[in-house]
């Protein structure tokens, strides 16, 4: 799995961190996503898909 992010569109909701806390984090003030692992482990993949589905700005793109 490969994750790409459109950082410029991120609205800082943090839904991704709630769904996959080992893969995503946020910047302090504006909450913009920080990608900790662009190639997450297999056991993280479902969480990452959930994060992509729930992201309110649709900035997380997942490619297998």
């Amino acid at each position, binding site marked *: 799995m490969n994750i790409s992010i459109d950082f410029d569109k991120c*609205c800082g909701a*943090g839904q991704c961190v709630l769904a996959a806390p080992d893969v995503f984090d*946020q910047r302090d003030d*504006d*909450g913009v996503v920080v990608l900790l692992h662009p190639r997450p482990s297999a056991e993280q993949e479902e969480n990452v898909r959930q994060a992509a*589905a*729930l*992201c309110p700005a*649709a900035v997380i793109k997942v490619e297998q």
Partner: protein
Amino acid sequence: MTTPGPSRVTVVGASAAGLSVVEGLRREGYAGSITWIGEETHLPYDRPPLSKQLLSGAWETDRLRLRDPGDFEALGVDLRLGARAVALDARKRTIALADGGLAGYDTLVVATGTRARRLPGTDGVAGVHVLRTVEDALALREALAGKPHLVVVGGGFVGAEAAAVARGLGCEVTLVTDTAQPMGGALGDELGSMLGNVHTEHGVHIETGAMAGQVLTDGGRACGVRLADGRTIAADAVLVGIGAQPNVEWLAGSGVPVGNGVECDATLYAGFGVWAAGDVASWLDPRTQEPVRIEHRTNAAEQGLAVARNILAGPECARPFDSVPYIWSDQYDLKIQIYGRSRGADEVRIVEGSLTDRRLIALYATRGRVCAAVGVNMARALRGYRAQVAEAAVVEVESAA
């Protein structure tokens, strides 16, 4: 007893909630047919930026796309855009469309959202705007390019955000709100007052505690707003941001319970093989047993996914929808974020930062229990308070040393 699984799901509504249902069904392995009906002619697009980046001109419409066009083919759905549902026959399980066509289903999801409320007598009046669709936003943007005196009626999210954008574009702006502060309903006095000061510093003239009575016209064009107390405010353009109403009229007489939205049980099921998700869904909050309807972006995605899972589980095994609502607003250089439900809180306590710094976290409580956490420019730290909202934690009298 087990009921046969669905084989023909129809989703009415092609915005965020509908998208979440459709994608959720496919992700969870549903291989049956999906018919997806949307009134707007556009592929699903995002609405929060309409009053922010699209209105300011920072983004063009292609940035609003929720998915790339190619992604919809991969979903394998019969997507019918520009098709408005006008009636439901729940017995025959058919939906009548405005063009005379019919769509059938064994399982229906209503995700028809809301539409902007308007002031009486303003339909078709030039210079009067609402902000709900991409067309609305582009029309307002075009009007703002002429640097009009804009009167914003309504101090909620849409009104406050649009006022900030309009000032940024150099327009003269008057904000009319019936609350004591902009976004006072959601933020309360202290934070609302801070936000009001920010708007005033940026040159917005605010009329608080004021009800807009009617839009004044001259030759069919808006020229002002008359307040309920008789005063008038001159205007070249008027934005009406006084809330939204659920699109449920097409369900009248179908047997599907409607009132303030589609009335669902705690699992978002309305009976008759009908589910609802997003702005249009009123469901029994499993925590309070009270009906709740939420008009916000993250709720649409979460409910859509929950409905997809519940459809596949079947009504008997469906799980209640329980979430911590999340909303945000961007105004000037402020990012305001709310977990939970802050309206009606009887106590507000600033637990990090300060109003002076305009960087803070505040806990809102009702009867001693945390009901919301509100952050201003402290996005990452705010997330740490979400658990207290989820647990409705007891507010500590003294913060622990």
